[in-house]
């Protein structure tokens, strides 16, 4: 397309582009690396390529310096992120991952994540193939859960409108499958799949895959548990008389940024308008292809869809999507998001089945003293005929429980700490994994969260707001897994014990918070929050959230258009 000239960023391509183009459709020399017993890690290109297969090479950063002195390489291992559209997993599958976590991971945990799936942490190289084969045997894969591809597709976990969830969930699966890489590399490398003579093709993603990661959701208002504005592409379910009729399509959200680089910023998604159900896959494909062709392949820091929209303009991008899909967007249908939290405890779906949402602090399913979460989940999986749903808030829904099993499952959940009595504040708090495993982490997140929340609880109580809560999120680096850039109070890791403090998001997740103080300690943060919560307690309007209050009272300026306002 000749008029695309101005829409494509010219220049020397980023290193990852070479890696992808030389990878023979994501195979690289991973197999050779698996046979190299001199190191527990992967060599440089393969280090990147395994991400497309759902793994990150990590190491125990707590002991990295110690091992360097011991003349031992870092304790290399991989983290695996499974592909579970909508976070749905059966009991049988649960039992398989529970056992693998015990037998072959150094942390022994199942970590529920903000991408509505689970991660294994600490798998050594000799066990990686076994891991994929174990998952494959129960119908789970990890294709494209990381890397420059469309990643695990999220779907609202709403247990109440069960028929509606079923429909939306089916769309999440269809979109995920439709946008999946078609290369046979995964099967060949990990499952010892037969090598076939046919040439691989990637009709949607292209042989160089996408310029950067790409995230998609299906969301059922009024819940915004998936946090649409953290995602490149969102299908907002629109119903008419209890029936799903189509989607509003929101494009170009994303939270990642780079410290000190003002060309990067979190950005909300734009509403392109409404489409009917039949056009869903065509639109998904067209958005991905437009971003594939127009996304910045020269500078990875500006490669995500949100920057493409800023650069070419929303209207140009939208027109291209319409052209490619052969579909015109209708006017957006009205919808409203009211909150993002999960609804804890039991609810009965319209289908008469029961659903129990369990609060899992940090999403880390492990046996702790007096809180045997992992054993509890296993015991439930052994008798539960339904499924589990992992939520985008890192919690777990035991879904589709028949009435006759409700009591027994409740007893197991209670006995194993899956129904803890915790404050609203704790439920509204979230952190990414961060140290010690995440190589990008700059500050603690998961390990700091429990104590941080206790401090906030204390501050709320001190100011007479013990029944209130603040959407409080900590993310260990500016890449944004902890979605702090959609919190009322968001902490972004800057260095050991140091964070950038952001204020002013709202409860529904439709406003980006702005930096209030840079590079300050946890103690300084609590001092500031003490002061501000005090002001909020004294001056708030009825039901006014903390994020709304700090903007109304002028503590922080509102971010309306983040390209202009975020650093202003």
């Amino acid at each position, binding site marked *: 397309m000749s008029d695309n000239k101005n829409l494509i960023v010219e220049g020397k391509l980023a290193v990852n582009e070479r890696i992808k183009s030389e990878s023979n459709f994501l195979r690289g020399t991973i197999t050779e690396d698996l046979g190299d017993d*001199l190191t527990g890690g992967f060599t440089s290109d393969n280090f990147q390529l395994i991400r497309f297969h759902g793994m990150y090479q990590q190491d125990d950063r707590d002991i990295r310096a110690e091992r*360097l002195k011991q*003349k031992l390489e870092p304790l290399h291992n991989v983290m695996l992120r499974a592909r579970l559209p909508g976070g749905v997993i059966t009991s049988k599958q649960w039992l398989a991952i529970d056992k693998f976590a015990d037998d072959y991971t150094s942390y022994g945990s199942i970590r529920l994540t903000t991408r509505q799936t689970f991660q294994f942490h600490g798998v050594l190289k000799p066990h990686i193939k076994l891991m994929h084969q174990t998952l494959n045997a129960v119908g789970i894969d990890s294709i494209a859960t990381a890397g420059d591809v469309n990643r695990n597709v999220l779907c609202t976990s709403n247990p109440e409108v069960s028929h509606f969830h079923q429909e939306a969930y089916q769309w999440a699966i269809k979109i995920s499958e439709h946008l999946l890489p078609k290369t046979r590399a995964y099967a060949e490398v990990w499952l010892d799949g037969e090598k076939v003579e046919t040439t691989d093709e990637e009709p949607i993603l292209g042989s160089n895959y996408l310029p950067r990661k790409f995230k998609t959701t299906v969301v059922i208002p009024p819940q915004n548990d998936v946090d649409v504005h953290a995602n490149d592409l969102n299908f907002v379910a629109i119903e008419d008389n209890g029936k799903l009729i189509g989607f509003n399509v929101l494009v170009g959200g994303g939270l990642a940024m780079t*410290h000190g680089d003002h060309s990067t910023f979190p950005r909300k998604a734009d509403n392109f308008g409404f489409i009917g159900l039949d056009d869903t896959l065509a639109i998904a494909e067209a958005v991905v292809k437009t971003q594939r062709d127009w996304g910045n392949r020269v500078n990875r820091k500006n490669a995500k869809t949100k920057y493409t929209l800023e650069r070419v303009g929303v209207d140009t991008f939208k027109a291209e999507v319409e052209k490619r899909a052969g579909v015109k967007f209708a006017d957006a249908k009205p919808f409203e998001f009211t909150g993002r939290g999960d609804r804890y405890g039991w609810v009965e779906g319209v289908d008469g089945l029961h659903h129990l949402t369990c609060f899992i602090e940090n999403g880390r399913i492990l046996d702790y003293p007096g809180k045997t979460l992992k054993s509890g989940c296993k015991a439930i999986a052994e008798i539960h005929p339904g499924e589990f749903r992992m939520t985008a808030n890192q919690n777990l829904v035991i879904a589709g429980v028949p009435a006759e099993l409700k009591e027994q499952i409740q007893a197991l959940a209670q006995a194993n700490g899956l129904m803890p009595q915790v404050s609203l504040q704790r439920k509204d708090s979230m952190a990414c994994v961060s140290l010690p495993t995440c190589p990008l982490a700059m500050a603690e997140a998961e390990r700091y969260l429990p104590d941080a929340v206790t401090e906030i609880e204390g501050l709320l109580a001190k100011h007479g707001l013990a029944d209130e809560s603040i959407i409080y999120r900590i993310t260990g680096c500016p890449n944004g897994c902890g979605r702090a850039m959609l919190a009322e109070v968001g902490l972004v890791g800057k260095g050991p014990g140091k964070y950038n403090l952001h204020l002013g998001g709202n409860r529904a997740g439709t406003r980006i918070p702005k930096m209030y103080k840079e590079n300050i300690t946890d103690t300084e943060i609590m001092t500031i929050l003490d002061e501000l919560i005090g002001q909020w307690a004294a001056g708030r309007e009825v039901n006014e959230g903390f994020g709304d209050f700090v903007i109304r009272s002028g503590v922080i300026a509102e971010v309306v258009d983040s390209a202009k306002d975020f650093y202003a």
Partner: protein
Amino acid sequence: MSNQQQFGPGGVVEPNQLNQITQAITGLDSSQLTWVSGYIAGLAAAQDPNANNLAPIAITPVPESAGTLTIIYGSQTGNAKGIATAYQVKASEAGIPAKVISMADYKPRQIKNETHIAIVVSTHGEGEAPDDAVELHEFLGSKKAPKLPNLKYAVLGLGDTSYEFFCQTAKDFDMRLATLGATAVLERVDCDVDYDSAAAQWQDDVLAKIKDDLTAKTTQVASTPAANTASVASIYTKKNPFAGTLLTSQKITGRDSIKDIRHIEISLEDSGIQYQVGDALGVYFLNDEAIVQRMINAYGLSAEETVTLGDESLTLAQALTEKCELTLSYPTFVKALAESSGDAALTALLADKAALREYLVPRQIVDIAIDYPVKVTAQQVVDACRPLTARLYSIASSQNEVEDEVHLTVALVEYEEHGFVHQGGASGYLAKRLDEGAPVKVYVEGNDNFRLPADPNTPVIMVGPGTGIAPFRAFMQERDAQEAEGKNWLFFGNPSFTQDFLYQTEWQGYVKSGLLSKISLAFSRDQAEKIYVQHRLLEQGAEVYQWLEAGAHFYVCGDANHMAKDVEQALLTIYQTHGKQSADEAKKSLLALRKAKRYQKDVY
């Protein structure tokens, strides 16, 4: 030569000698001249009866990088690497020979052979060096760091001004290099997040400063004469050990290992001691004072009592700590004490020789004292003891790499018995009881039966599981220094890959550089069935046989009781399987290999 002879311009040489010398050095550049001056000074030191005359010929290695700008980078994110790599191109375009290397791959000691370095380094977290840079950073700040009076350097720091310790690591490098006597060609530049233009300016400025030094030089430096001749006699012997200094005692097994193995570095500075790879180091040690006190208490004696050993008079505590063998146990101790005390139980123990041996094996002398607290005098206790002897460790370093240091690989023996901790004599001393910086008495014990092939082109196969790895680390350092062309194949084994891969990062470096052609690993506990080095030998039997047929030397170091026997059996099997030999023929082949000094063992 003495100073009374006055000839020629310097008053030392005759005119015709001066002529010859002048001829010989014509065309040498300044760094070559520097080398020659050191070489000749070494010759003089070796001949001068008045000087510290047993000092070895001081052969200063020729700087590999003479006339080269070495760009060394350390970074967490890759920005420094990008700048360093681009800089190399820029320098080459300007006609300045430059090489670029990551701090992770850079051998810290190499720095004293450099003439010009450019450092590009970021700062991690709160002022810490990035992981890649930690080793060099620490080295330059440590007492091991050499003086660098001839080094010119420039430092570029990458950082973020929003951090409190902005560019701290760059500042550290700058300060440490200056402290060591190196000269900054340019004031350090500290860059903020948007470093592009500042970095480019720095590159140009540095090049302008060093251009004159580096562009003129084209001559290649002649190769270093090999120093691999027979051991130079030393005044330091078993009887007269040298008081070296413990530089480093570093655990090199992981925190979850079932073993505690230490990498030990000892300074031999100013001793003139020369050793060869394959030699062992004798280490004298002091007994554990807590154990000595327990022993004194057991016999109800006083630490301050005076005893006599030969013509030396000292306290009981001193004698037991410094002079008596307490960690190995021996029947003569029991016998002597039984006689001097007349104790019935002890005498009964003595009666049954087999039972006595069985009793002694798991015990140290202190345990006997606790089991049989007989009535004896301090002198009788001391007399019953064998004199303390040095422990021998295979040397794990080559002087071509470490110069006046010697390295060991020591397994700490430590266990609890009778409710208190027992340690091995020397291993406990080196690993736990001796502080870094403290003196330790050592001497070199030559071992001509464990030598690298004289021909550097000869391939070698090394089998060294556990601490048996030690001499092969020395071998590789030596072959590296020799730039030996012969192939090298290492077999190593230990319980676990993640915890017990001794010197893993060094082997990785040697594989990457191509020095180590092959490495075969056997981690016995990483899978259901136990795998040991002999299994790897058998698996690779065809290729092992080929190497042997091609003249390879075969070395084994480590446990004598099981491993060495199993490896020998594997070799016999290989001759039978791949050489189509009978059992008898295989034995003969092995014998011939041994006679040709191509099968050498250092086992214990």
